[in-house]
């Protein structure tokens, strides 16, 4: 299946969910969902690329670490990302992510993401073989 993302409701914050044929695909789609919390991912040009490496003892914590790494890069580089090439091997995630510096006029960023939480945190492979990766992010 193609990667797909969506948001789900949470009282004050917002849930991000990614689906994919592989764990890497689901994590990539969850990252797109997080960008969509801030702006329309399709409005983010892929002019610059950075590398991200995460290690975590469980797939759930790998999702949290992955999203938090992106939050950190977004905050410190003043960037938004829309391209996510993700590889997962055991407890390690390697990614090349592409995006551009925030352009307030064009991106109209709604809100900054403070961090990925453990709320509604779930990473699993469904009976149809689709991977799902989700959690609530604090905004």
């Amino acid at each position, binding site marked *: 299946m193609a990667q797909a993302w969506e948001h789900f409701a949470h*009282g004050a914050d*917002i849930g991000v969910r990614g689906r994919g044929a592989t764990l890497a695909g689901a994590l990539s789609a969850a990252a797109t969902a997080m960008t969509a919390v801030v702006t329309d991912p399709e409005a983010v040009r892929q002019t610059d690329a950075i590398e991200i490496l995460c290690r975590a003892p469980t797939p759930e914590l790998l999702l949290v670490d992955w999203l938090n790494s992106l939050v950190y890069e977004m905050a*410190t580089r003043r960037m938004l990302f829309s391209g996510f090439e993700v590889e997962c091997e055991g407890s390690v995630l390697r990614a090349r992510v592409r995006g551009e510096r925030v352009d307030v006029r064009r991106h*109209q960023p709604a*809100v900054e993401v*403070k961090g990925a*939480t453990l709320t509604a945190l779930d990473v699993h492979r469904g009976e149809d073989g689709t991977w799902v990766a989700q959690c609530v992010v*604090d905004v």
Partner: protein
Amino acid sequence: MELSRFERHSEYCWALPRSCAMRVPALLYADEDLLKDMDDKVGEQLVNVASLPGIVHAAMAMPDAHWGYGFPIGGVAAFDPGDGGVVSAGGVGFDISCGVRTLQTGLRRKDVEPIKEGLAHELSRQIPAGVGSTGRIRLDEAEFDRMLTGGAHWAVQRGWGEPADLEHCEDGGRVEDALPEAISSQARRRQRDEMGTLGSGNHYLELQEVAELYDAKAAAVFGLGVGDLVVSIHCGSRGLGHQVGTEFLREMVVAAPDFGLDLPDRELACAPIESALGGRYLGAMRAAMNCALANRQILTQLTRESFERMLPGARLRVFYDVSHNICKEEVHDADDGTRKKLYVHRKGATRAFGPGNPAVPEVFRPAGQPVLIGGSMGTSSYILAGTDAGEQLAFSSACHGAGRAMSRHQAARRWKGRSVVEDMAERGIVVKSPSLRGVAEEAPGAYKDVTRVVQVADAAGLARRVARLEPVIVLKG
């Protein structure tokens, strides 16, 4: 929530009695309507908090409680370190020491009305707000550490304000026992460009008019009169606090089994107060609290500069500064009747010390501590005063705001940012924001009724209403 689950202790106090792993009951302060509207998750989260080691008296929810992570937002819980009590990164939240600072301007509506648009523009030019914005201050490592231990004191020493400002801040503008060495290089890096920034989302700076007084005596003590203009700044410890919360939440999750903590929900990630990890978190959290105090102090001075340009001679004084995402060491009545040092988590809840408390600035002591309740964009905000009864009810705590009634996406679908700005303009309110989508997501109708929340907090005895404020200028991130 389903009301039949609760025992009704009084008109505004509902209890979930002890069951299963709960060490104490859960108490919710609300009226029937607010309680019915609360998400079931609030009850579930309170039950989980009530099962944590060392919790004292009850896990409590304020009238504005809603689903948080681990702890509900609008949650209060106190822990006894001598009884294995814990400190929880989730119980404080990512936005450590998020709070409200209110400034008295000495101005009236007629002074500002002719230059309202110009003042709004000047404030939006001076106050960095929104995603991607940066402050004008850069600190080297040594100076950064001084900020982390000095809080608002550090900012005043560096020229960002006046010594008198500090007398009207919680903790006198500086939290003791901060541990700068517990702040990671990532947290430092994340804060590098964010000193003196407002943030985004529900963070704001507003010029507000005192529209109504409920308690003339307390209002006189507070120096508030109908028609007075005040400025309220709602923000926290910015990227540094977010990173501290992120790092310690993860570390506490991984370490929980080592402490023998059998958590009903991993979001409750915590550590014993008297453990090395607990101590390190408390030190880092206090440093983040100082960062928030310094940040609000810098924003105070930027606000003064804007007023000075537009209204030469205007003198802005700090009225009060109080946080609503914290864990603080305080002395309270324990269940055995003794006075004990407890660690009180207030996650989306405001400290509300009653009259005479020595921690309250002397000038306010006859009335009690000012409790600053921010509304949502375009709605009322409130100033309350702490009560004597609040000590017994909720470790001297009250609500902090309204809480969302609908998700950001629902709000963005229902309203357009431009119409929200136009609607507010028709009501005489100037809105400045770099993002129209952000304005739509923060539309007044997306939040619960703060007026009802405050009425219930008053009726329940948590704090009493003193003044209602209405927005004149809104600066949103």
